[in-house]
């Protein structure tokens, strides 16, 4: 115990001595949490539409009005030729083309049916997909408006219809910040924890002070614990600051139990720090440690379900995601913070993370050699 106490004293002194790193470790996550959720916004509100109106009828006007007043679309203009509209898409000034063919109104009324053409710039698949979904919804709405004009609503519907009522739980206003804030916080905590521990031991190797420690009767696990505990505390501090930012700036307060969340973070940090330690035992220089960490963090971030959902990935990728600790944290953060899930709900994730923590740390202890 006494040994660990002295080691901790040393570590804390070193951390507090280098003000630049301490400031970075605390300021960078807070600033990023303040700014990035504002940037990571996929609310569809400004898809630009170029309309080719070949009909110039009252119906085509009504349809255009309906599209612009829906609030999702920005009209780049109408009355283009197809070529002009295509150029707009090429130069990224329009995302969608809505082409209303000649005789739209006449055919609709007389022949009971008419086609519309929608062309979408699909380089960015997400945007294309969402834009088209919204536009089709607007067209459908317009369609039922038209139908209502011609068919007198009776006591009963004129034919069997199924009414689909949908409600959005946990995030009724479809606010994108609610989705991003817990996820970004999860990534920041991971990066701070893992990165700093990885660099720390390698630095001792590079500077040579690790030999001094190796010749003392300090046990392996003493050394590892001495490295873990300070960064574990730092991780908790960053996490707490993040929660405060989420509350003050974005108005997101945890629906679920705060203690449960801290309990999960406590175990999670052990896993991430263990991962950092494991990497540091393999690397010889800080530069190496940084690149190895970068490699993994990048994969963790992209395959963690922060930006694109894991559901849609192919099966092999889902398997990879199972070995990604960040994906569990992002999931659990969203569950506890937004849905109010209880211990029973997060028990499987907690189990996996505990397993990660055990494996990473024991590998790190095993792989840390006191003799070189």
């Amino acid at each position, binding site marked *: 115990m006494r040994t660990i106490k002295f080691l901790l004293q040393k570590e804390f002194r070193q951390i507090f001595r280098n003000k630049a790193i301490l400031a*970075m470790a605390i300021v960078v996550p807070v600033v990023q949490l303040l700014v990035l959720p504002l*940037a990571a916004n996929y609310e569809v509100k400004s898809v630009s539409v170029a309309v080719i109106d070949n009909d110039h009828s009252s119906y085509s006007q009504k349809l255009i009005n309906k599209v612009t007043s829906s609030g999702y679309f920005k009209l780049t203009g109408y009355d283009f030729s197809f070529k002009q509209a295509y150029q707009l898409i090429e130069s990224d000034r329009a995302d969608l083309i809505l082409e209303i063919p000649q005789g739209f109104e006449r055919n609709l009324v007389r022949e009971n049916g008419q086609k519309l053409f929608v062309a979408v710039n699909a380089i960015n698949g997400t945007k294309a997909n969402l834009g088209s979904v919204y536009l089709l919804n607007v067209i459908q709405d317009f369609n039922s408006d038209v139908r209502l004009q011609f068919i007198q609503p009776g006591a009963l519907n004129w*034919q069997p219809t199924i009414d689909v009522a949908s409600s959005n739980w946990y995030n009724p206003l479809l606010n994108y910040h609610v989705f991003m804030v817990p996820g970004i916080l999860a990534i920041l905590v991971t990066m701070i924890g893992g990165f700093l521990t990885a660099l720390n031991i390698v630095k001792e190797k590079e500077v040579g002070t690790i030999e001094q420690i190796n010749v003392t009767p300090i046990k392996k696990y003493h050394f590892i614990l001495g490295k873990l505990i300070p960064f574990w505390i730092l991780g908790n501090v960053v996490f707490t600051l993040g929660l405060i930012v989420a509350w003050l700036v974005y108005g997101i307060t945890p629906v679920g139990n705060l203690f449960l969340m801290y309990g999960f973070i406590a175990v999670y940090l052990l896993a991430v720090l263990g991962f950092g330690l494991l990497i540091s035992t393999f*690397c010889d220089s800080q530069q190496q440690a940084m690149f190895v960490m970068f490699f993994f963090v990048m994969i963790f971030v992209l*395959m963690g379900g922060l930006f694109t959902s894991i559901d849609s990935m192919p099966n092999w990728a889902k398997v990879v995601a199972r070995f990604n600790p960040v994906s569990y944290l992002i999931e659990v953060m969203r569950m506890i913070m937004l849905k109010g899930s209880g211990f029973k709900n997060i028990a499987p994730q907690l189990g996996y993370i505990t397993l990660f923590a055990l494996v990473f740390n024991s590998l790190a202890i095993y792989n840390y050699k006191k003799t070189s």
Partner: protein
Amino acid sequence: MPIIWTKYFMNWPAAPNAVNKLIDMKQILIFIRKEFAHVLRDRKTLLILFGMPIVQILIFGFALTSEVKDARIVIMDQAKDAASKQIISKIAASNYFEIDKTVRNSQEMKEALKQGEIRLAVIFPANFYDDLVHQNEARIQIIADAIDPNNATTLTSYINSIVQDYQMDFNKTNNIPYRITPELRFLYNPELKGAPNYVPGVMALVLMLVCVMMTAVSIVKEKETGTMEILLVSPFSPFKVIIAKAVPYLLLSLINVVSILLLSVFVLDLPINGSVLLLFAESILFIITCLTIGIFISVKTNTMQVAMLISLMGMMLPTILFSGFMFPIENMPVPLQIISNIIPAKWYYIMVKDIMIKGLGFGAIWKETLILAAITMVMLIISLKSFKIRLS
């Protein structure tokens, strides 16, 4: 008077101009060779440097798709009649959904949604079929887990269209009047693959981070290990030091560009529609921009750890977000839109997309080229100005 001394030494011996230049070139070449040796010695880093772009392209190309599929849902069927069963089997047959289980009451449904893997619940009230036939109106309720708003919207609209489909089948006998059928066409990327968007994005992301990280450490490392003193007493101007530090990484990054392009053409089936030469020219410009940013960080910081924290922690998420390939920049608040302009990855991403996917020429991207060149110049000048030629 140390400064006069160094000046004196830098001009000595006073040889003819041409000879001087020759010596200069030779010096730089030797210095570049030294830097190369440093880079090539560290095998693990090299492995990561070359391996990373490959792994990332594969992840982005195959794992990340923007289409929505296999969403797990639960069904609460209180009707259990012909109509509800048919709709359920239609849902089960679609690629978008995977029915996880059926629940009996709302309590169970709430529990299922809380588990975190269920994205949506579809509820059929009792007497669904009877209502549909006798009252001509039946209701279905959808409850979506809207934490991911876009996913929720998309899934809801998919269920909606499945139900519409069923309704059309059901009413086959009477023709629906006044019907507008929208015909949808996806340009450039008809299958909504992720690759056309992500490959340019990954190129921008990987090149940017790797270049910045590599050079960010380079000069500060000399400071920390003390070898900076040797450099300072040598007849080497800051400009030459910077050049020599940057050249090896420029070559390494070009190898990365080649491997990314080869993968995207041969593995992801994503052809280069525009000029390959132009693409390489712009890539070189972008790499140089990133290298100067790294050098700027390196000159400004005093320890490697700080330089690394800035270049990894400080740059990674902002580059992902502000380059515009994940989230549309026009959705951001105006101040952030302005900030995004100073992220070189944004401009490079636009250029690669234009050249590779759309097949446009230089006429479409000269503005982006100029901006990158300007950023490079500014960074280089600031770095040179703040390059301390004396200790402490």
